[in-house]
């Protein structure tokens, strides 16, 4: 929370952040991220940065799983975007 303030102070603008998805996509996505990161004991930073740097096989499996799932989801979501951005 402090970092964006510093960023704002130095650069004069807030970092960009665009969420195009409607609330009924945001809510389940948040729940999945919370639930999944607890179940797997780590997220992109935990397994992705720390785990890979420690050469942990557990983290390598985790990163492989969430990357694959995320890419598949992003591609599906891209094709469904027309459906949920329609008024």
């Amino acid at each position, binding site marked *: 929370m402090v*970092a964006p303030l510093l*960023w704002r102070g130095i650069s004069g603008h807030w970092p960009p*952040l665009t969420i195009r998805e409607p609330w009924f996509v945001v809510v*389940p996505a948040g729940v999945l991220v*919370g639930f*999944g*990161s607890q179940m797997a004991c780590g997220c992109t*930073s935990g397994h992705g940065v720390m785990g890979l740097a420690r050469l*942990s096989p557990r983290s390598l499996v985790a990163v492989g799983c969430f990357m694959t799932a995320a890419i598949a989801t992003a591609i599906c979501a891209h094709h469904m975007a027309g459906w949920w951005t329609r008024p």
Partner: protein
Amino acid sequence: MKRFGLAALCGVIFGLGLISGGMTDPETIQSFLMPGRDWNPSLMVVLGGAVCVTFAGLRLQKRMVRPWYDARFHLPGKTRIDAHLVLGSILFGIGWGLIGLCPGPAIAAILFGGAKALLFLVSMGAGIALFHGVFSRDPG
């Protein structure tokens, strides 16, 4: 107090890294996850860079007997690759792929992300609580 200050400093450095790498914008993440003409490799570069720096940091850590402001290092002890790890990572990946926000950036975005980013953070909290509610009797 020194311990708190150091933790806060680490948080600020991490946050600035996420912001300057463009990792707090879900569009950067989504354009990484979507292979194609507009593919943006930022995430790979930031994550790869972070892994390299952490790797060097860990070499240093191995030479230290104990951290500056704690009695010992707290390193993850689990080594088993189980269903929880795989299923949890897949669920996490689906949520991450849908929006392009993960816990670090979601927390960094509290002040500037707007209503949807806050909604995401609250939902994330609900997901965490749900997990502990469901599995409180059976620690995975």
